[in-house]
């Protein structure tokens, strides 16, 4: 199933992906991981990609970013600001990554090199894309951290990754993602690996970024609740295929596809359980 989303006539999408397929090559065998997925994002909009682990959602984004090695075969087309990304010059893609398209990943604890201070790792990223004096770079980093509501930024810059919490590292990653004024941010399950309290504040940051301006966003998650906070349009992926596509409200309210239906009803069931558990425990506490 490959519905081509109809973009509003007045605006051409920033990223337009058509019939994107990814296969993993193992010797002569070919495993199809992503099967003809199409979607598009406009500036100032957020596209949510929903699916369970292994449904191919992260793979889709890695393919768009050109982060898959030669064991993968990518076909289809993905136009970013009018330029083709699939099969593009690796050097051109590299220059684009981090500056025009930036990324926030899951597992913030393992995404930074354990042997370098955070300041050093932020600095190498900025230095890669901008020509700044080290002093200007430093004040820029402090600004980013302050913007991300991190206390004592000078101190944090001198820390090693293992000395900071997952939520803190995730904020730094988000800060680094917006620092170079990207046109597109891809967030790959940014709330999965951190505790629920940090999750909430991290989501607030994303909502803030979205409201702030014209950046386009692709938000990948397996969590319906998280996506309903931020996504304008949602595609649902299942076994490498996009099974449902539409505005967030329409997908949540009236899913046509059986799998999406299943996901939503499960989500509701879990929420009901959760509410029951809260009520149950609170009554028990009252009794005790």
């Amino acid at each position, binding site marked *: 199933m490959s519905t081509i989303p109809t973009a509003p006539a007045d605006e051409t999408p920033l990223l337009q992906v058509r019939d994107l397929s990814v296969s993993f090559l193992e010797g002569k065998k070919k495993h199809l991981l992503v099967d003809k997925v199409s979607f598009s994002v406009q500036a100032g909009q957020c596209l949510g990609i929903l699916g369970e682990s292994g449904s191919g959602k992260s793979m889709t984004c890695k393919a768009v*970013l050109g*982060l898959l090695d030669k064991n993968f075969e990518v076909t289809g087309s993905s136009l970013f600001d009018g330029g083709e990304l699939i099969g593009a010059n690796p050097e051109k893609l*590299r*220059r*684009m*990554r*981090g*500056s025009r398209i*930036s*990324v926030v*990943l899951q*597992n913030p604890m*393992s*995404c*930074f*090199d*354990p*042997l*370098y201070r955070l300041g050093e790792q932020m600095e*190498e*990223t900025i230095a*890669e*894309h901008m020509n700044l004096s080290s002093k200007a770079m430093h004040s820029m980093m402090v600004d980013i951290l302050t913007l991300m509501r991190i206390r004592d930024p000078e101190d944090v810059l001198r820390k*090693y990754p*293992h*000395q900071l919490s997952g939520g803190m590292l995730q904020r730094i*990653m988000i800060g*680094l993602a917006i620092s170079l004024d990207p046109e597109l941010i891809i967030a790959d399950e940014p709330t999965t690996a951190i505790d629920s309290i940090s999750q909430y504040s991290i989501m607030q940051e994303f909502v803030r970024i979205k409201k702030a301006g014209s950046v386009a966003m692709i938000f990948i998650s397996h969590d319906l609740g998280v996506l309903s906070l931020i996504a304008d349009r949602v595609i649902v992926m299942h076994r490498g295929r996009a099974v449902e596509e539409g505005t967030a409200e329409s997908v949540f309210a009236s899913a046509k596809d059986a799998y999406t239906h299943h996901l939503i009803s499960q989500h509701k069931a879990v929420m009901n359980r959760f509410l029951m558990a809260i009520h149950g425990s609170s009554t028990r506490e009252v009794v005790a």
Partner: protein
Amino acid sequence: MKNYVIMRLLATIPLLLAISFLCFVFINLIPSDPAEVALRIRQTPIITEELIAQTREELGLNDPFLVRYATWLWDCLHFDLGISYTNPARTVLGEIGRCLPATLELAGLSLVYVIVLSLPIGFLSAVYKDTWFDRIMRGLVFAGTAMPVYWVGLLLIWLVSIKMDLLPTSGYGGFSSLILPAFTVALSYISTYIRLIRNNMLENMREDYVLYAQARGLKQRAILVRHILKNSLQSCVTAIGMSIPQLISGTIVVENVFAWPGVGRLCITSIFNRDYPVIQAYVLLVGVLFVFFNLFFDILQYAADPRLRERKN
């Protein structure tokens, strides 16, 4: 950091005691009577029972076992390792001291070979995984681990020294005589470390921090050198460091192939001559070296890794 170093230093004491105790037990297990041996060393013409008994008393051989161990240990700490059985004119320390420089030269140059060859080859093998370079190197590594050291030595002598007449066949004399034996010693270690570095690099390449570094748009070369290589070296440096005593003990075979006048050859000669004090001293020396190199590189790794530094303080 300071605490850790002190802790590690203290932890080596029981280990050193255990090693020295083993060496002492070793010399006490030998079939010949030390008193009789001592008399023979003094070149006493007629050895009678009384004389042996007298000598036993003199040498303190009738003391309890642990007392004798303490005395021996005390002597060792003062670098008194006894006298050679076969050549009473020579002290064990003198013998070891005479031969050690040659062995250290050999081990030193092999270490240089190991580092200079295995680092770049392991690195390139990982970067160009599954290309012809990697395949050839993997083949050579495999052959390197299957070939007996002495055979490689013999083949090298035949090819380089006899056929091509480039280097001396054997013996001790200047740098040119050192090249072949050192390469032979290094060969099996090179194979091991190419493998180690390659696998370590490949493991690191699958880490999240590499994906994120790519997503940040860093140059591939910078990711490889600044991040992946540095992380792999972290663990490899300890392994290479700890193999230094093994390099020193690994010279035994090569010294015998190349007639190299080092401690390894001394040890083999002593085994044939039943010159036990020399063997004992050699075992003690290598054991102590082993402990100290372990200690040194443990601390080095500790100092280089911010995670370790943090956790234990």
